[in-house]
């Protein structure tokens, strides 16, 4: 993302736009300026169109970020956004959250999950750290020892464990995290990008 600062030189435009609005132009004998002014006005409109197109395109990309990364953006991306864009993002986030909450039931439906059709029931997991007993949603408990491989963890498990690195063979490694996440196919893409390096 490029630098977002875009400032217009206001000096020229003010002078010329006031000339344009001056309706006594013809009577004051400066009628010969009208073509120049018209031309200048057209180029102003074109400049404005380019600027607004640029800003709007950035807005669309930022909107896509919300859908890809969730509510909290990686700091590298935040650095590239202007203050106004952050404001827009926060308002958009809030608006979307209000809409999702209203969808039905107690908490509504989080439609930023389930981006892909569900493929399989279980995932394979490898543990990096010794965690001990981990209780799966349906009650059975699983022993998580360092470097052990656990097959058949139910896919929709809510876990409060974090991904430390994502395995190349499609297996995920678990560590610890502060909040509960839903283990599904988009899990890898989210955490892979955040935990790089």
């Amino acid at each position, binding site marked *: 993302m490029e630098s977002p600062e875009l400032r217009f030189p206001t000096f020229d435009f003010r002078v010329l736009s006031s000339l344009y609005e001056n309706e006594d132009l013809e009577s004051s004998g400066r009628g010969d300026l009208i073509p120049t002014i018209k031309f200048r006005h057209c180029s102003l409109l074109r400049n404005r169109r380019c600027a*607004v197109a640029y800003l709007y395109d950035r807005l669309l990309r930022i909107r896509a970020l919300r859908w890809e990364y969730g509510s909290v953006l990686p700091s590298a991306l935040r650095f590239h956004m202007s203050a*106004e864009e952050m404001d827009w993002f926060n308002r958009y986030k809030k608006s979307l959250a209000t809409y999702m909450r209203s969808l*039905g039931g107690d908490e509504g439906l989080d439609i930023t999950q389930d981006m892909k059709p569900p493929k399989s029931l279980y995932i394979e997991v490898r543990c990096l750290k010794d965690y001990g007993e981990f209780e799966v949603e349906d009650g059975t408990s699983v022993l998580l020892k360092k470097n052990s491989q656990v097959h058949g963890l139910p896919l929709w498990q809510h876990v409060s464990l974090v991904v430390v690195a994502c395995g190349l063979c499609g297996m995920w490694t678990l560590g610890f995290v502060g909040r509960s996440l839903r283990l599904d196919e988009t899990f890898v893409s989210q955490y892979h990008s955040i935990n790089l390096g």
Partner: protein
Amino acid sequence: MAEEADLLGQDSDGDSEEVVLTPAELIDRLEQAWMNEKFAPELLENKSEIVECVMEQLEHMEENLKRAKKGDLKVSIHQMEMERIRFVLSSYLRCRLMKIEKFFPHILEKEKTRREEEPSILSPEEFVFAKEFLANTETYLKDAALKHMPPNLQKVDLLRTVPKPDLDAYVFLRVKERQENILVEPESDEQRDYVIDLEEGSQHLIRYRTIAPLVASGAVQLI
């Protein structure tokens, strides 16, 4: 509306198999609405009653699953089914939101000029979302660029600058109810309008504009 009362008025039995409604029909309706929404170039009428009923269904299924014993296969299959339904529902709502965001000035304009008797294309929550999106974008453009511009250039007419939905896009459809005498308008000057009949069960590739009212009434299904 009577159907909604039916679906909402039922009690779920303890057994996860028998529920007094036709869940298959409801899911079928959801899938049809989903496909129509995906392939139509413009925002279609909202089916919030289907959304509500499906959400209720999902809740019931989840409750039933908690109560059911640990017969692994049955539980897994139901869970899979629930995930699938949730995916279709999410996808449907996402598609609508995307169209709202894409065409927001036109949709809000249509909403403003709609008469009282016509049903709204947006659900109340979607309407709030659309209005907030408009305000948000306008504020952003003003703060980021427009306030630095000379006063006579500061108003951007979003209705003209944001592209309209392309109603002349071609769509595939399957005919559910036989239609007669559909007027197809010419695309170019050499052609003239002609009239076609749509047989039940036939499939066509046709401009969306021609069959838009049929999609709304449910006589054809976009595929």
